[in-house]
């Protein structure tokens, strides 16, 4: 179980997909890094991930971690965003049989889990089908 302080530290990434990039190597880092692992550049520029992408692969979780037990079964996918960054996240608002490799998805802001009946509500991104 995460604590409010850990959740709070991850807010810039969880809410706003804040990343950073090395302009020398043209690499994007998510979560953001202090220095580029390739060229040791410390002058990394703030950036934001794109909100659309496609499903690379996915699985159905039937035996989830405790805080997700209310949600099981649910789909978790690896999504490649339009800027090339790959993220792991739940794929929701879509029947399991309709999820396809290569399917276009977009990010939506959702409640990720609740800390029991009395703890904090944890929000962040999930993926939903994006037909267009």
């Amino acid at each position, binding site marked *: 179980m995460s604590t409010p302080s850990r959740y709070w530290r991850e807010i810039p990434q969880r809410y706003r997909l804040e990343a950073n990039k090395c302009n020398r190597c043209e690499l994007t880092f998510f979560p953001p890094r202090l220095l580029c692992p390739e060229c040791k550049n410390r002058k990394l520029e703030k950036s934001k991930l794109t909100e659309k992408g496609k499903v690379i692969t996915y699985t159905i979780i039937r035996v989830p971690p405790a805080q997700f037990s209310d949600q099981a079964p649910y789909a978790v996918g690896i999504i490649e965003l339009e800027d090339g960054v790959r993220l792991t996240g739940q794929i929701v608002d879509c029947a399991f049989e309709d999820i396809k490799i290569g399917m276009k998805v977009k990010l939506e*802001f959702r409640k990720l889990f609740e800390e029991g009946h009395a703890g904090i509500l944890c929000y962040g991104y999930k993926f939903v089908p994006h037909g267009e």
Partner: protein
Amino acid sequence: MEGIIGYGAYIPRNRIKVEEIAKVWGTDAPSYKRGLMLEEKSVPSPDQDTITMSVEASKNALKRAKIDPADIGAVYIGSESHPYAVKPSGTVVAEALGATPEAHTADFEFACKAGTESMFVALNLVKAGVIKFGMGVGADTSQGAPGDALEYSAAAGAAAFIFGRDKIVAKIVDTYAYMTDTPDFWRREYQYYPQHGGRFTGEPAYFKHVTGAARGIMQNNDMKPEDFDYVIFHQPNGKFPLRVGKMLGFKKEQIEPGWLVNKLGNTYSGSSPLGLAATLDIAKPGDMVLIVSYGSGAGSDAFIFKVTDHIEEVRNLAPLTRDLLDKNKNYLEYGEYAKFRRKIRKAD
């Protein structure tokens, strides 16, 4: 000149039909459909609430406003279903947009009127010159007790409006508020479902305040129903907004573009704001629009907007409200709906 510079809507994809609810409680679906003028309603997914829908509607409003979210000086969320009893919804929404830390935020509550309240305050702070941009959101995931008449209509949705001074899509002409203490609908602390005064919610509550606000703002501006191209009233069911429109002398054609309730249900704080968003989706430059909300307890806020040329440039930068309503729907059975709305819960 001040007014709306961006607007956005969000409607969850799930729906439940009146027949599906009537089947469980052994009631007569055709008479409910006729009586409420309602066919189906939206239902949030278990991971959606006032905060998540407010974020999505606000992001759509930002796409149209095309401003730096850091310049938003106020983020106001109106809802009767704020997820926390203590802790603001507005902080999460402002953080998700990137409007923090230099912003004022508050959660408004006034039954179904909370959405227009947040708009009223954000807009008037912009008018007063206190802030450059202000955002007002109306959002709800409302609940009716199982088997209660409200269960057929209580729905979910959100609409967000960003106000500013330049690149306005709808100029504010005037605002007006009409309010008395009328106990037609309430929910006490620790109660899960609201109580209502049955027929008492009609004449002395909805009709008195909506007509009071509509007549007041028209009188102050020396305007008549025929001076407006469109009018939006709060939509607790299909019948009330049509009947109040007729009482005031408006025609069905003025009401229909913003009348979403037959396929959407009552989205409470989101109701008249979503109607305004749907109306802006089809409005032409120069159109005059009147919106009158209603919140039990009881009161109405009224706004007159004049649509500008800029509307054509921003309209298609975010999803249209009718598309959110009509496309990509997922119909639920009552059991799934009861789980989604936590009317039944899994053992710990």
